[in-house]
């Protein structure tokens, strides 16, 4: 009897139809939150008006709404909703890829220092008054340097790689965060400093439609190899020798995954500043629902991360009369939730 019970409890992970049903469910959830985010806000918009306004872009519809409505939808809400969806999905899938590749469910773009490195690069870019493209490139390079340094440190601690990764991550993050503090110290207090400070807290309040392309291009470049190689990511979770014996070039694959994940993280940090916890919590949640297989967890984590961040961003602009930076809210939600997951795992 107990045997039967344990079988049913894991059966769904193997049922080939199940991920399809789940995927459909998450797509519906995504669409629901996507539209919900348009309706709510300080300027309420009726669902019918939204549909009319959106359709008016494709078909000719006699405008029965004030022009403010169109501005709110396309200039204010659309960029925020799109960017939160893209960033949420990208951070989640980066975390998911990093975790498998480092064979460690406790790592994420934050833990590995990628976010801190990318943050330093971007703030340096703002300080130096670089163009958007150069700032993003600098952010990516610093993020990459951070991951490479952390990987190098953990490699030196042969028998304690997990500890090495986490301690290395703390150390490298701390160095880059100090670097960012130094940038803030020397930044112009009227212009650059407020820009850096507010952006570092993690916010999408000032995102414009023109920012989306800086987000979407690097994210597509980073995401594509992860989607294409999602089956092989499963093999990276094995011991190095085993993975190689099964016929994969682990060194090349690891480089590709680091490149892709870091590029996505840096692009996100470049646009939204530091939004923590998404890359750690969502992958955990994904595995709880769909199992470890990357063929299923990659699409589900993207949808779940997108939906989560859209929802949190909508909350950040509606729960108080002011605007709560997104990074603060994701920490308030992410940290306790992660603690719950840890205790739950510990009890097993």
């Amino acid at each position, binding site marked *: 009897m107990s045997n039967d019970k*344990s*079988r049913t409890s*894991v*059966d769904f*992970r*193997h049922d080939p139809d199940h991920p399809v049903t789940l995927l459909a469910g998450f797509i519906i959830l995504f669409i629901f939150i996507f539209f919900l985010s348009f309706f709510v806000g300080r300027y309420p918009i009726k669902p019918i008006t939204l549909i009319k306004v959106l359709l008016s872009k494709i078909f000719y519809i006699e405008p029965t709404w004030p022009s403010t409505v169109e501005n709110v939808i396309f200039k204010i809400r659309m960029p925020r909703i799109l960017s939160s969806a893209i960033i949420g999905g990208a951070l989640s899938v980066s975390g998911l890829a990093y975790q*498998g590749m480092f*064979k*460690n*469910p406790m790592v994420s773009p934050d833990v590995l220092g990628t976010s801190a490195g990318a943050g330093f690069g971007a703030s340096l870019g703002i300080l130096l008054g670089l163009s958007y493209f150069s700032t993003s490139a600098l952010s990516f390079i610093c993020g990459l340097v951070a991951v490479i340094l952390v990987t190098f440190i953990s490699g030196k601690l042969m028998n304690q790689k997990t500890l090495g990764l986490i301690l290395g991550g703390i150390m490298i993050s701390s160095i880059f965060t100090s670097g960012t503090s130094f940038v803030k110290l020397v930044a112009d207090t009227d212009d650059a400093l407020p820009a850096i400070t507010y952006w570092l807290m993690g916010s999408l309040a000032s995102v414009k439609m023109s920012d989306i392309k800086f987000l979407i291009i690097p994210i597509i470049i980073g995401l594509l190899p992860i989607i*294409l*190689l*999602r*089956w*092989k990511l*499963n*093999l990276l*979770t*094995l*011991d190095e*020798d*085993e993975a*190689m*014996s*099964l*016929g*994969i*070039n682990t060194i090349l694959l690891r480089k590709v995954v680091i490149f892709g994940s870091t590029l996505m993280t840096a692009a996100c940090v470049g646009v939204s500043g530091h939004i923590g916890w998404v890359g750690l919590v969502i992958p955990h949640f994904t*595995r709880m629902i769909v*199992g*470890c*297989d990357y*063929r299923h967890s990659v699409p589900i984590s993207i949808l779940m991360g997108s939906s989560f961040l859209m929802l949190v961003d909508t909350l950040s602009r509606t729960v108080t009369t002011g605007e709560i930076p997104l990074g603060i809210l994701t920490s308030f939600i992410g940290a306790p939730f992660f603690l719950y997951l840890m205790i739950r795992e510990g009890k097993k």
Partner: protein
Amino acid sequence: MRLDVKNLSFAYKDHKVLDDVSFSLNEGEFLCLLGKNGAGKSTLFKLLLGFLKKESGEILIEDKKLETYSRKLLAREIAYIPQYSSNTFDYTVFDTVLMGTTCRIDSLGSPKKREKRIAMEALERFNISHLSHKLASSISGGERQLVILARAIAQGSHILILDEPTANLDYGNQFKVMNTISSLKDMGYSIILSTHNPEQALWFSDKVMFLNDNKILAHGNTDDVMTSENLKTIYDIPIDIIEKNGRKICFPTLENKDAK
């Protein structure tokens, strides 16, 4: 599938680990590798699997040099079964076996119906298809080794390298797993297995190779080379080999005469 090793040498920096090792493994042959800790058994395996680059000598698979194989092609010829396979992430038994088919699919592809059928057949071959839905963490150590064997079969390779595959198993499971491995020999698989249990060599293998001080001490038919002298040289204790009911067992002489 035939494997030839000629004058193979390897050193970690200045520390010589293998010195002029030559041997052959014929199709359908079961070769047991014995030697104390640090004799170079694992290093030999790492060289055969291409994890380490040899210093000198040659490794040939069907007369083709090992270096000419890509990782993927090599995985189609040689499969590796480690002492213990663990994963932080909990995959199902079926997915674990399915990973074996990776060397048979496109670089950017995922397993399709054909690969799934291969994985299921591999599970059926070891009578563990009922475990396919279970998570790897929820099965016993003996079952896990069978799953790893099934994964190796799913690779479709015909040379199996097993590095102390029963070291972490209880007495009963050691015997069961060895029996299963032995049955693969009859299906034409060439097997090279390292062990610290000389009886496994006596009972299951066709040939035995002793590694001692980085060199081959003896290599030949099990009955010819499994002698008290060779065992004493390797393990530094007197060991008698006695025969009972047509089966040989090792009988170490205890230094403490009072010991029972």
